[in-house]
């Protein structure tokens, strides 16, 4: 089995889905000849033709509107928003149009659209490239928000997203694109949506997280293990809707929870996770829920991002605090 980076796994998944279903279309800014600014669509136009993989004019609302129109004509669009910070330009088409079409039309039309976008901090981008805006999406009914934490999940989750008849926002953390490789089967496979995954089993405390923070949490868990603290790491994978069963199960198992997100603390995904725990597992808690998140400021200027982003050390500190409560 080949070891692939996450960006290569994504390219492979796109290629396989394009070949599997003639209605799949991949498009966006620079995705054609250039293969995407991160090369996520590298070689796809040559391999599949410019009818299937194509560049669009530079306008995000136009890209999402194009996707909606193409879906109405029977296609399965996979548009790319070049950086997710640009989503503000197309909030209406995503949150006001695509995601509510099933509701608006009483189920008589569907929107099998997968909107892919790079996001996430730590790679020294200009402003509005790195923001974690999944919380904005997570509050939108009718939309799935999927965030893989590595190559294997990325390939299988993307296949599931594209095959889904519902709209999916599929967010790819930039720091995960090339930072590590994983064994990824050559053949096509799916990883189910709406299901979290235990990335590390443990008995003393549950870290619940997603995206790049899964990596930081696993590193923190290794360090904590040396001190005899056995941490479980639950990767949400789909951050909306939540896998409430998996969240409840891990908290009931360990009795302690630290919720880790790269996004700002206010009203994010982990606020909802805390609510699920409070509703369904509060009697299993032996300590307050711990939170590790970014401060409630806009995403910082890039030279300051290392001091702003949550990291392994923050997680270790918080876990010890909750363990020793």
């Amino acid at each position, binding site marked *: 089995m080949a070891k692939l980076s996450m960006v290569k796994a994504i390219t492979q998944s796109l290629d396989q889905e394009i070949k599997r279903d003639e209605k799949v279309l991949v498009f966006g800014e620079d995705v054609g000849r250039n293969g995407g600014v991160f090369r996520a669509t590298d070689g796809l136009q040559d391999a599949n033709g410019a009818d299937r993989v194509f560049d669009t004019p530079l306008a995000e609302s*136009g890209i999402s509107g194009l996707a909606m129109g193409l879906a*109405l004509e029977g296609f399965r669009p996979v548009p790319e928003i070049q950086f997710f910070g640009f989503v503000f330009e197309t909030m209406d088409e995503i949150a006001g149009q695509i995601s509510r079409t099933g509701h608006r039309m009483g189920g008589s039309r569907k929107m099998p659209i997968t909107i892919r976008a790079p996001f996430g901090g730590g790679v020294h981008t200009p402003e509005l490239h790195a923001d974690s805006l999944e919380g904005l999406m997570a509050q939108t009914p009718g939309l799935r928000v999927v965030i893989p934490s590595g190559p294997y999940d990325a390939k299988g989750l993307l296949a599931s997203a594209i095959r*889904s008849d519902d709209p999916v926002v599929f967010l790819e953390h930039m720091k995960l694109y090339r930072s590590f490789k994983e064994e990824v089967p050559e053949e096509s496979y799916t990883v189910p949506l709406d299901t979290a995954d235990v990335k590390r089993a443990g008995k003393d405390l549950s870290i619940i997280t997603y995206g790049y923070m899964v990596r930081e949490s696993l590193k923190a868990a290794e360090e904590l293990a040396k001190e005899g603290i056995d941490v479980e790491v639950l990767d949400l994978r789909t951050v909306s809707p939540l896998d409430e069963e998996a969240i409840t199960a891990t908290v009931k198992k360990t009795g302690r929870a630290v919720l880790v997100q790269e996004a700002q603390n206010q009203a994010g995904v982990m606020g909802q996770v805390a609510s699920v725990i409070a509703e369904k597992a509060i009697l299993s808690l032996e300590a307050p829920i711990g939170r590790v998140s970014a401060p409630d400021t806009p995403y910082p200027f890039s030279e300051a991002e290392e001091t702003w982003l949550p990291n392994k050390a923050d997680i270790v500190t918080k876990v010890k605090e909750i363990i020793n409560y």
Partner: protein
Amino acid sequence: MKKIDFEQLKHTPETETLSILDETGTIVNEDLVPELTDEQLTELFKQMVWSRVLNERSTKLNRQGRLGFFAPTSGEEASQIGSNFAMTPDDFILPAYRDVPQLVQHGLPLYQAFLWSRGHVDGNKYPDDFQALPPQIIIGAQYVQTAGVALGIKKNAKKTVAYTYTGDGGTSQGDFYEGINFAGAFQAPAVFIVQNNGYAISVPRDKQTAAPALAQKAVAAGIPGIQVDGMDALAVYAATKAARDWAAAGNGPVLIETLTYRYGPHTLSGDDPKRYRTSAEVDDWQRKDPLIRMRKYLTDKGLWTTEKEQAWEEEVNQEINDAIKKTESIAPQKVSDFLKNTFVDTPPTIQAEIAAYTAKESD
């Protein structure tokens, strides 16, 4: 020293307004009179009368609390019906909220249009082969979607078009530019219709843009644009038919601006037009009324009589009576149904909510 003359650069060529049937019901442009049979001409006018009657009845039904949201259409019959009359049932319509008459003429049963007005989802449940979206509320959103439908039509090698409507205010939206520009870049079969009725609620057309004509906005997108007398059904029909055939033949999109007027308020939800326009202005436009000139034209041709119009109005009134009755017989909406339609593949969190609401609803 020679200077760059920006004053010179600012001026775009004068836009001509296509006109075929003038206010007196006289043909003023013999060459462009559309090839319509007597039956088609009569049908076109009947649809315009239908729309006028529907406007009057909808206003009353709204006042009685039997209809909900209503955006009056009276004055815009040539623009709305004339353009829609050029399309086929296989063409895809993306209407805005004032474009209910076109949507119904395109095939939406009237009772469903009434359900939409009342805020009932059954108004938006469309059969698979009905080529339409429900009326768009967000100004301009339908323009980018139109580019997408048109690109899909092109990819599916169909010989149809996507057509959409917005108003003069809509041309200020980013989505307006993105829509016409995308369709142009992809040479997709779309017909973009701007119904310039002079006001975006209260803001007059001249406050929207420095452009002398909205049709000129096509120039920047590299697509044809045409301005039409929007009170002249023959001119609107001729322009739209030509645009439709041009786009369907693979030549790319067209932008049409119709110069029209709404006699009534923006909507029946509290707008008072006296705050922003004079009754003299309304009178001026009513002298250009689209029905008066078409009625004269058809009467002169021996195709129409007062008796025919009275009989037709009765028929339309009966259709409206039947439709509103059917509307009022539809079962109330259930939250559990909303939940079921939020996703195709319903996740466990929503399944739990469906169970909870279903239990509540059976109490």
